[in-house]
């Protein structure tokens, strides 16, 4: 599991890679939080394109970043969710708090 961070004006993009579970969530969390508290962006985009697996730890990860960004008056967007990651994420009702975008190729599927 790894996270690559890119800064673009007032926006930070976190590209996640690999499996997200209770074991891997902690280091991702601290890396993202470090850059947020340093840069204070107005938008955090979490990109799930290279996420191979996610359990409910991923929900906690997004929810925690949402709270942090909310304190700073910023927004969170979650992008490129695979079908299986979307299935877990949608259980949480997160779509009411955070904009969630599926992967391009899965938008046309009936699921």
């Amino acid at each position: 599991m790894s996270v690559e961070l890119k800064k673009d004006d007032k926006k930070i993009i976190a590209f996640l890679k690999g499996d997200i579970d209770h074991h891997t969530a902690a280091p991702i969390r601290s890396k993202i939080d470090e850059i947020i508290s340093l840069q204070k962006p107005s938008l955090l985009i979490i990109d799930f394109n290279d996420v191979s697996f996610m359990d409910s730890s991923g929900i906690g990860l997004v929810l925690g970043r949402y709270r942090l960004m909310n304190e700073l008056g910023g927004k969170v967007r979650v992008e490129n969710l695979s079908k299986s990651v979307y299935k877990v994420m949608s259980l949480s009702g997160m779509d009411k708090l955070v904009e969630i975008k599926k992967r391009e190729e899965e938008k046309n599927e009936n699921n």
Partner: protein
Amino acid sequence: MKITNQMRLTLDSRSVNESFARVSICAFVACLDPTVEEISDIKTAVSEAVTNCIVHAYKEELGNIYITVAIYDNNVVRIKIRDKGCGIENVEQAMEPLFTTVGGERAGLGFAVMESFMDKVKVRSKINSGTCVTLEKHISGRE
């Protein structure tokens, strides 16, 4: 219903073993030729149950996690994930979505994920003795 194949696995309750547990169980179930979605459902449910043992049952201390997987002749997989940890005081409450005792960043959705991704989820628990979670799923397989 007859068991056609079975495996047992004992693991240290270290968080690094979460991925080993879900991947090895899915490798064992692969003989039923499950769909990508079925594999992903089992992986996710197992990950939740094993994480519960580590975070809740043993509270980040070291203990054993006992896993058995049985495959039945009607293509049903039954996975038991057992610990000898602290036990759950109120199972019904623990299974409620968003209920969590640890705070922090646990979403409180572990059992909700297990229940929505598996056909059956059964929880037996005794204080100071341990918890056993039984997960069951029928595998339709790829046609």
